């Protein structure tokens, strides 16, 4: 069974999703245990796969028994496996944390919600582990369609419209990616990533390959929320329901960033992307702009959720800039930042989701005196805020350290400046919230503040996963050296 881990990872949640949907029409109570079981198995399998990948270096699994390029193959190396562990762990912990809210808010259609939840995870896990370009498109569409529907279930009136705008931009992105794959297919005749990599060097001068690269990249950037193609992101993520957003926000954009790294390293090898093209500098400039704009727009928001979505735009700027700087250190920083950012974003959105469930809305004013009422939640929120700022020993510090060193190595001092400026702006953002939560005293005459005084801590089954995630930030920070040394460096050495 161990040899089948790559397939099991994706198919167990898949089968469970179908069983859950059938069960939701027959026996509603068994939906949640099945979902938890499937995600737990998937999480365990991904950890096993990581151990295997570190031991063996590269695992290849042929689906249907056919050799690639005639069949579809799954390729697992330590880079993949690390992202897989991150995705499945976040999904599992999120389900534990938000199950209560799902049962309450979506009581009549919770079977459908769990089904789409599991299928979203199936899509993301498949995107990370596949070795075939067209299979990636199909899995991307699974993740996208389930994402659109999960986001549209928000309570706010604006939720369907934001989701529809996301549909339009997301479809353009996916179709551009498909066009790029079509151009690759026309010139090489193959869809398998390893095969294309072998065939491309003779075609580097071809304009079709150049255009294919541009379109694939632009498509992935739209789905990733890279400035200036990020316009769908703030609205779509703000008006989504909390259980969905603490799942989608950490994962979707980061997995797309992983796809970009996989494309520029494994398919179009570094010789092509960095040597033959001169766009590397341009993209780093664009990344600097993305980081700055994300930070500045975040400053102007009163709604905490919207502010956090702009921080996501900024973080994606870090990853893209790090990946395109062109040296090993910066790429290590980018990959480490993918993992760290997944955890940080998850932690912060889970905290905000819990708060919004208790309070009703998350404007800055609502945070008055929240430290006394919800000490643990605010503690976790502060921990993840410190990680986003980049304070040691949280994990955010280490990935920023690698990014800055890589930028200095590449001589891109503008990137270094922008990183430091955005860290300062993040300090302002989070300390504004901490100050309101800690020091501001609620005014008894104000009706809203009176309601505030009545609430207590968020429920235990959301709190414990939240605290685990916050602790994970510190643990991941302390073990950063291990992660980089044993997982990321060998993976990149194998690819580059």
């Amino acid at each position, binding site marked *: 069974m161990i040899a*089948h881990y790559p*397939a*099991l990872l994706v*198919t167990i949640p*898949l*089968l469970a999703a*179908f*069983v859950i*949907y*059938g069960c939701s*029409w*027959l026996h509603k109570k068994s939906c949640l245990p099945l979902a938890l079981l499937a995600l737990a198995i998937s999480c365990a399998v991904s950890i096993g796969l990581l151990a295997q990948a570190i031991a063996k270096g590269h695992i290849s*699994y*042929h*689906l*249907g*028994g*056919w050799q690639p*390029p*005639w*069949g*579809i193959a799954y390729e697992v190396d330590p880079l993949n496996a690390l992202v897989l562990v991150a995705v499945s762990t976040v999904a599992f912990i999120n389900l534990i944390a938000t199950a209560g809210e799902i049962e309450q808010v979506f009581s*009549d*259609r919770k079977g*459908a*919600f769990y089904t*789409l939840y599991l*299928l979203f995870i199936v899509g993301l896990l*498949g995107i990370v582990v596949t070795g*075939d370009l*067209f*299979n990636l498109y*199909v*899995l991307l*569409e*699974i993740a996208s*369609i*389930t994402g*659109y*529907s999960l986001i549209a*279930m928000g309570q706010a009136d604006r939720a*369907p419209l934001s989701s529809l705008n996301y549909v339009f931009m997301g479809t353009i992105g996916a179709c551009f990616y498909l*066009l790029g794959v079509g*151009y690759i*297919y*026309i*010139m*090489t*005749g*193959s*869809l398998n990533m390893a095969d294309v990599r072998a*065939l491309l060097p003779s075609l580097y001068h*071809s*304009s*079709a390959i*150049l*255009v*294919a690269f*541009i*379109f694939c990249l632009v498509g992935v950037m739209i789905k990733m929320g890279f400035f200036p193609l990020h316009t769908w992101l703030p609205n779509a993520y703000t008006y989504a329901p909390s259980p969905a957003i603490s799942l989608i926000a950490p994962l979707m954009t980061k997995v797309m960033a992983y796809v970009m790294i996989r494309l520029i390293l494994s398919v179009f090898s570094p010789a092509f992307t960095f040597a033959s093209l001169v766009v590397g500098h341009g993209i780093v400039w664009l990344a600097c702009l993305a980081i700055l704009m994300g930070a500045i727009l975040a400053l102007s928001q009163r709604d905490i959720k919207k502010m956090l979505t702009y921080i996501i735009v900024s973080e994606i700027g870090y990853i893209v800039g790090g990946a395109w700087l062109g040296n090993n250190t910066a790429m290590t920083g980018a990959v480490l930042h993918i993992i760290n950012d997944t955890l940080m974003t998850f932690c912060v959105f889970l905290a905000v989701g819990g708060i919004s469930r208790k309070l009703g809305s998350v404007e800055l004013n609502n945070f008055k005196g929240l430290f006394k009422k919800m000490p643990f939640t605010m503690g976790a929120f502060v921990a993840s805020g410190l990680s986003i700022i980049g304070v040691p020993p949280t994990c955010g510090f280490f990935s920023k350290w690698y990014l800055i060193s890589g930028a200095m190595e590449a001589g891109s001092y503008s990137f270094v400046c922008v990183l430091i400026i955005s860290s300062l702006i993040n300090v302002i953002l989070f300390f504004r919230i901490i100050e309101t939560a800690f020091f501001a005293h609620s005014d008894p005459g104000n009706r809203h503040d009176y309601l505030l005084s009545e609430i207590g801590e968020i429920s235990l089954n959301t709190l414990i996963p939240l605290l685990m995630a916050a602790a994970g930030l510190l643990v991941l920070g302390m073990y950063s050296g291990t992660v980089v040394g044993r997982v990321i460096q060998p993976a990149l050495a194998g690819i580059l």
Partner: protein
Amino acid sequence: MILSGGLLLYATKDFPSWGDPTSPASTHVSPRYLKKSLEETRVPNVVTSILADYRGYDTMFETTVIFCAGVACFMLLRTFEKRETDHYYRHVPTGITIHIKGQREIPIESKEFEKIDAIWTPYDLIINTVSRFLVPFIQLFALYVIAHGHHSPGGGFQGGVILGASMIVLAIAFNLRTAVRRLGERIDSIMSALGVFIYSGIGALCVLLGANFLDYKALAQILPIDRVAARSDGILGVEIGVGIAVMAVMICVYNNVASEGRYDEGL
């Protein structure tokens, strides 16, 4: 937008010409499919053999995509509250229509009074009879398309859509409630999950029998046939699963979208 169009057009400079049999796309991977499909899978229709065997994993996810669309339409639109309008009934023996204002209804499920839609059309004998007559033939043709997908253009998706269309014809010719009475919402939803479950279940069965996922030759261990025929039957099995799923999802999407989730009136 003009920029992207221009880029795409510029790239065509390097394309092989239309219809060129020596282009890389046609010579690298595909010749093996064409040459070996018959001897490896005993399926002459190469498109089906690639779809369900060589790249069967893609097809499983494609079926999952359409399943997602069905679940999403259900989740987004379905409401259980009643629409607040007047009700219209038709007295069946005489054909007179009655319009009851306010939100009162005829209390008893009477055989003489039949509920019709607010945007009602006159009762048309020809359409009703012909569509009711045609539906079994449409379904038979759909089953033929699914089963004969090995030898002629067809297969699970095409047959499933035709099956779904047979129920939608009923919904359009009569009204939505008639079609829902024939194929209820619960059975339809369970069937959509069942169809995709058959597909991935066959794949999981192959894993339990020792081969890789969706490697049909493992099925030869439980069925009394040789390995190549096992591939052919594996393809048939997954096509049936796909057909069931697509049919159920088509009906589910139509029902939810046409009635805005209320399942009371349709087009």
